[in-house]
């Protein structure tokens, strides 16, 4: 089933980590195999923040194969050496969990494709996000568990999207969890509720064009699809509008960039979405109770119509 939620503050910052945690926790009945956050924090915009993993969570419920923890250190060392090799300087390093790391790095090249390909050439290593504002945090468990594990409650920023996942067509693991980074574009992330029926056709076509897939989760296709459109010069909104016909199946998805948040709904409106919009805040989720978790007072909400695409700026 899965649940998605997103919010954007316009003209101010807020504790988006805490707010999104409340929204996603309200949706936990839609799935708590894994939960993911894409948080756009307040930064000085000078350095990249790279969230990456060197292994999987193999705890209860995971479909991943357990590895000797010592390989995590070996992989980390290779990452560090590759960063040096590519001229990237690690400014700050945090090892949140044995398999999950956050690096603040100084890197002056704009094209992240070569960079990402190099890092991900290390077996077992995946960049969860790369951006100057974006941080993707995803792990097994419900919203509160993931929030507590990664200490997201205090993160201040302008906007965020998140996903509570009930695994259906791919494993219970971090690589299949949402949000997906819009590789190799800085600060682009996607969450999706639904099912894409032309996944393999699109995937083969995109792989032939040099795009990368890290999982077999159909939702990843949206991130790659939009990234390919933007690579070819389309704006985010243009790419989203094209996706209404380019992607087949039922879907409601959110996409976020450094300064914007968008939603798209398939032409049959088969997946739910409730939306609240005011001058200073847009909040949306699979169910109204998600919005109520941050706006308990009586508010006006509505369901976007079939085939609707909307984009808001901070």
């Amino acid at each position, binding site marked *: 089933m899965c649940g998605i939620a997103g919010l954007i503050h316009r003209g101010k910052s807020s504790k988006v980590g805490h707010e999104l945690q409340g929204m996603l926790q309200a949706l936990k009945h839609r799935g708590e195999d894994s939960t993911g956050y894409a948080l756009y924090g307040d930064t000085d915009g000078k350095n990249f923040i790279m969230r990456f993993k060197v292994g999987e969570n193999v705890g209860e419920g995971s479909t991943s194969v357990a590895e000797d923890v010592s390989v995590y250190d070996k992989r980390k060392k290779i990452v560090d050496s590759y960063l040096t090799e590519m001229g990237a300087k690690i400014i700050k390093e945090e090892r949140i969990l044995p398999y999950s790391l956050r690096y603040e790095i100084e890197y002056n090249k704009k094209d992240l494709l070569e960079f990402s390909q190099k890092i991900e050439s290390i077996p077992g290593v995946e960049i969860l996000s790369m951006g100057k504002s974006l941080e993707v945090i995803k792990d097994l468990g419900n919203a509160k568990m993931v929030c507590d594990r990664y200490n997201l409650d205090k993160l201040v920023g302008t906007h965020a999207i998140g996903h509570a996942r009930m695994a259906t067509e791919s494993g219970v693991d971090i690589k299949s969890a949402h949000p997906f980074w819009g590789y190799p574009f800085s600060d682009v992330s996607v969450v999706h509720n639904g099912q894409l029926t032309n996944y393999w056709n699109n995937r083969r076509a995109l792989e032939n064009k040099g795009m990368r897939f890290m999982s077999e989760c159909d939702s990843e296709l949206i991130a790659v699809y939009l990234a390919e459109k933007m690579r070819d010069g389309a704006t985010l909104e243009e790419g989203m509008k094209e996706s209404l016909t380019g992607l087949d199946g039922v879907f409601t998805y959110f996409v976020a960039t450094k300064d914007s948040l968008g939603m798209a709904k398939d032409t049959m*409106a088969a997946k739910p979405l409730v939306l609240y919009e005011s001058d200073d805040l847009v909040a949306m989720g699979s169910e109204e109770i998600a919005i*109520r978790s941050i706006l308990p007072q009586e508010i006006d909400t509505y369901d976007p119509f079939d085939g609707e695409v909307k984009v808001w700026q901070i």
Partner: protein
Amino acid sequence: MANIKSVSKKTKAQAMGMHTEVLTGRTQQKFFNPDEAENFYYFGTHDVDFNKRTDLDVKDMTAAEANKEIDNLMGQGYGTIVIKNPQGKHSLGVGILNKLNLIFEGSLGYFGMGSCDGPIVRINGRVGWSCAENLMAGKVVIEKNAGSCFGAAIRGGDLICKGSVGARTGIDMKGGTIIIGGDAGAFTGFMMQRGRIIILGDVGINLGDSMYDGTIFVGGEIGSYGSDAVDAELTKSDQDWLKRKLKVAEIGENFDVSKMKKIVAGKKLWNYDNLEPTEKKGAI
């Protein structure tokens, strides 16, 4: 559960092997024996006094707890119940099978007021998906917007949304009336079998797709017609009915109904030609 027994007298359709059994039993007797007046009352329903009024704050209750408390209050004879702080909870007010004046001060989540038969309900907010699904009788008024599958499979009663509604409004409806003050999404009236839908605003694509019967009236623009949905002549009788209905519904009272479009089933998808007329009725 109803019993199943064989019947000796065969209709033409049964002779053709289309039917060999009929349903009988307690369920049938309860609903269709007019000599047994008590059978017209559902088990577990309540006689209530509309003048006896109370408030119920459901802020810290689960949906099940709230519904149980509504039932308790009806058992105490309360005929007017005001629900405070529904805050988008799902499945509130479901399964009310007696007369009741129910007011929600706020919005409901999914499946609100499902499977009801008789209550008069006013919701001073919006509702999520599948509001008033399977409504048998009564009236449900939503002051703001509604989600998809609004009035799915209703069999009777009036369902009114003063704002806009999502996709598949009136899907599989078998009776009753749905009135929308704003716009409606795609597949409105999808597979509807009876009843009427009135939309004062615009409506999305595939209007009335695969509808078997029933009527849809549209005041605004139509995105596209669904399979087997066709235009029909808007008669004087239709206009009179629309005016009356909109007035009673307290919505669009001054709306110019003479310009509304009337959409019905083209009946090209019907598969009832082999049935007796009485069985056609039963099948619908």
